[in-house]
């Protein structure tokens, strides 16, 4: 049970949150080609190292936020995107 630092609630057990995965940017749906769209849907960098990801503070503040987590060590640091 790792601790996720919610920017609103402070540190919380990960069971209180939901991991929404690697941060991906959404192409303009009106103009994106299917290839671009499906890259957004399916392809992930999936690194063994630092990844910027989104969490949802489900039992706490109910806010989405991003942090950086090292997927090889589970270390967590603040995200520049947050």
């Amino acid at each position, binding site marked *: 049970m790792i601790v996720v630092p919610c920017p609103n609630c402070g540190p919380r057990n990960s069971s209180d949150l939901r991991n929404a995965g690697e941060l991906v940017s959404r192409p303009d749906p009106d103009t*994106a080609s299917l290839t671009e769209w499906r890259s957004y849907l399916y392809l992930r960098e999936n690194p063994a190292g630092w990844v910027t990801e989104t969490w949802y503070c489900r039992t706490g503040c109910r806010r989405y936020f991003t942090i950086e987590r090292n997927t090889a060590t589970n270390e967590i640091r603040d995200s520049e995107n947050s």
Partner: protein
Amino acid sequence: MSSNRLPIRGGELLDRSTNLSFTWNGRAYSGHEGDTIASALAAAGVEIFSRGMKYHRRRGILTANHWDPNLSVQVGDEPNVRAGSRRLVDGMQVSAQNVWPSLRWDLGAVNRLVGRYLSAGFYYKTFMRPQFLWHNLYQRVLRKFAPGGRVHWKTGTHGEYDKRYAHPDVLVAGGGPAGMAAALSAAEAGASVMLVEQEPELGGHLRWGGPDDLAVLADLNRAVHSTPGIEVLCDSIVTGRYDHNWVAVVQRNHEIAPERLIKARVGSLIVAPGLVERPYVFAGNDLPGVMLAGAVRRLINLWAVKPGNRAVVLSANSEGDAAVADLESAGVEVVAVLDARAGEDVVGARGRGRVTSVQTGDGRTLKADLLVTATGWTAPTSLLNMAGDRPVYDRIAARYFPQSLPDNVLVTGGIAGDGSTTELTAHGRETGSLAAQRALRLRHDRLTQTPRSATPDSALPAAIADNRIPLRRSPHPECYRSTTHGLVDYSEDVSSKDLIQATGEGFDSIELMKRYTTVTMGPGQGKLETVNAAAVLAEARAVEMADIGTTVWRPPFSPVSLGALAGRIFEPVRRSALQNWHETNGATNLLAGQWVRPDHYGDPMTEASNVRENVGIIDVTPLGKLDLRGPDVANLLDLVYVNRWQKLEVGRVRYGAMVAEDGVVSDDGVTGRLADSHYLMTTTSSGAAAVWEMLEDWLQTYRPDWEVHVTPVTGGLTSINVAGPRSRELLERLVENVDLSAGAFPYFSVRTGTVSGVQDCIIWRIGFTGELSYELHVPSGHALHVWESLLSNGSDLGVAPFGIEAQRILRLEKGHYIVGQDTDGLSKASTAGLGGLVKLDKADTIGLPELRAAFERTDLPVLVGLQPDDPMIVPDEACQIVEAGSNEILGRVTSSRMSPTLGRSVCLAQVDPSLASAGTAVTVQLVDGRRITATVQEHHAHVDPEGARQRV
């Protein structure tokens, strides 16, 4: 039955005023409070406690503690109880495991005769042909030989297990002198401390020491119990350390549960488990009467048990030397002391059922019934492994030491090094202070970062450097294996010879060897065996121990009952405000996700017919309901639904379908506009939570500029659907301030009014059943009143409740699809027949590119109404639609029921587009293999496709 009980010993744990009765293999025995099962039996002269797993050789006491591989017994309905540590309780029924017909005469012992053929991995090399013999005979025989006790699965119950959370600043795993000292200094520094000791008493090895040790222990005990801020948990084991110092403790000494799991978020974890004494590998090392030095010391000093009469001691360390003194004080004749430090050795023990003679390295044969070995220590580094450490081997000290630890894990005591009691407690104190300092800094951070907490009353404590004086590493001879072969793993019956053979076969890394020979895979998980196994491998490969590494010790540190891990099983259930009424009025329940719902009240067909003919009421509270407010709600709806929402007028309701970004249909429901910037959205019951989170996601991360507040109101509004041709008549008797006439309140409208005196009820006119119907959303605290009013005021109209099953029949007659049943994980909007609804010219909507792509394809399956040509046959849901002359799959029946309205079977089905046009005959394979024909219908709806009934 002879008595081996000694006169009173200074440090004994026994309360000799007590007399506890128990049975062992059916015979009556007794012992004292403070005895373990094993000590009570040993005191009574019992020498054999178990049989080996493979060869069924007799086994006696080896370590006399929790890790003793020979002391697993059955206690009542509890298998695999550690008789070396489990304290005796009056009335226990104890028996030997895995023996037949008895411990004394065990038929499995015939395996010894063929032992030379049962080498490592022998089963991989035979039993291959003929195959049927493997399946029908060999495997059954192998399964009969499975070791362990018996699970009483027929009579067992989950019972009263329990859990709790804890948040100590410092948790000390191990209550020996160093651990106790660490707990004291941490508490003195202001930290909250949890001190966990696996034995029922604190003290570790001091407990079986001499008067000086006992005096130190008494002082430490007094201090620990008088210092505030220390929670002492004895008879409790730290079983795991997980990421971010999430620590599991299994507490056994709590009166309300046999085992209680404590989950602790720990600031600093101090690992102080001491050391585990290692057996020595030589021929006959599993004979009863071969014991470790610690075992005889514990037996004599803690439980006043004389472990034998004539002893040979092989000693490589002070523990062995102390054992000699203890033996002598207990009246055991010490025949010889072999000093391993001086190169003396034991090469074999012989005897039948018990040691009778010992062969020494210099060729002597000594008559003895007890052979005591003191050949070194294993550092139980499990918790350190779990913290990411890979301990390294030190040749000089002949054991492993921690290498690199995270800041929040510290070690003290024997696992960190050697020293006198004074040196160990000094190291413990320094470790406790350091751990407290680090933990208090973390606590300060938590206080600062957590909005609800108090403002810290002091500044952030300064970081302090780790200036502890390390404990020394005393030289110790590398004693692993004698010149003969013996057992390395007692619980798995794996010998040094097996390991050498495995190395020769290519299993020459420790992990491969472990998997091939099963060494260290038994209940002890390598506590006694790991280092000896690595030593034998190093020997076989002629490399240094340090180059072998050890297997990674995985959690738990000590096995944990499933009951403790489960604890109280919390499986929340949700109940509508009417569920009690349903249950007292004959409803048969249905579990749907977390909701308990009425499936029917006896006869769903009649319930359905009553809706078509009169009026029925159904509790549909689980329908997800979201209150949406703000100026941008319509923009949000445009984004998340496939259709358009900007022009929905106040007082109107609209159906909407949602797809995910991949274009797959994800949810649907109706949304009504209650006021200018106030809407009520409904979702499927199962999708309610996901839709809410999804809306928040879009609002927070994609369009934070939009002003919308989403509030879930599912349980707060009890939803009652009043359906049937007489529904308006019924409601007109109860609704006060809403004109229900068709002109004033048309289909797909919403009004707010008072129902049976209950204000603020939302009423919308929709028709899932296909009948004239109104859905009431009533404040739940008054819902029962409304429900009962509907029934009491409509008895002359034939009003009756109906359940989920009747609703399913009605909606299928009407051809309404259910997301997730009639659609699946690949169904696009085109499959579900949403062509008329979807607006592809919006600039942005979820899944837009996939929506556009789906409507350009002609190969996607199509949802159709389907009727079997034989109206009495109802194909089961999921029956496949096939090519008439082959097994090629062309679709499937997604929903099917007998229609009470039509008196025939009706279905929805997903079919290949080539079969989708009305009138197409398709072949359906029934569950019993018969094939029938069915005809594709023009509409999804089988009853009233024009919708005349619901628009009256």
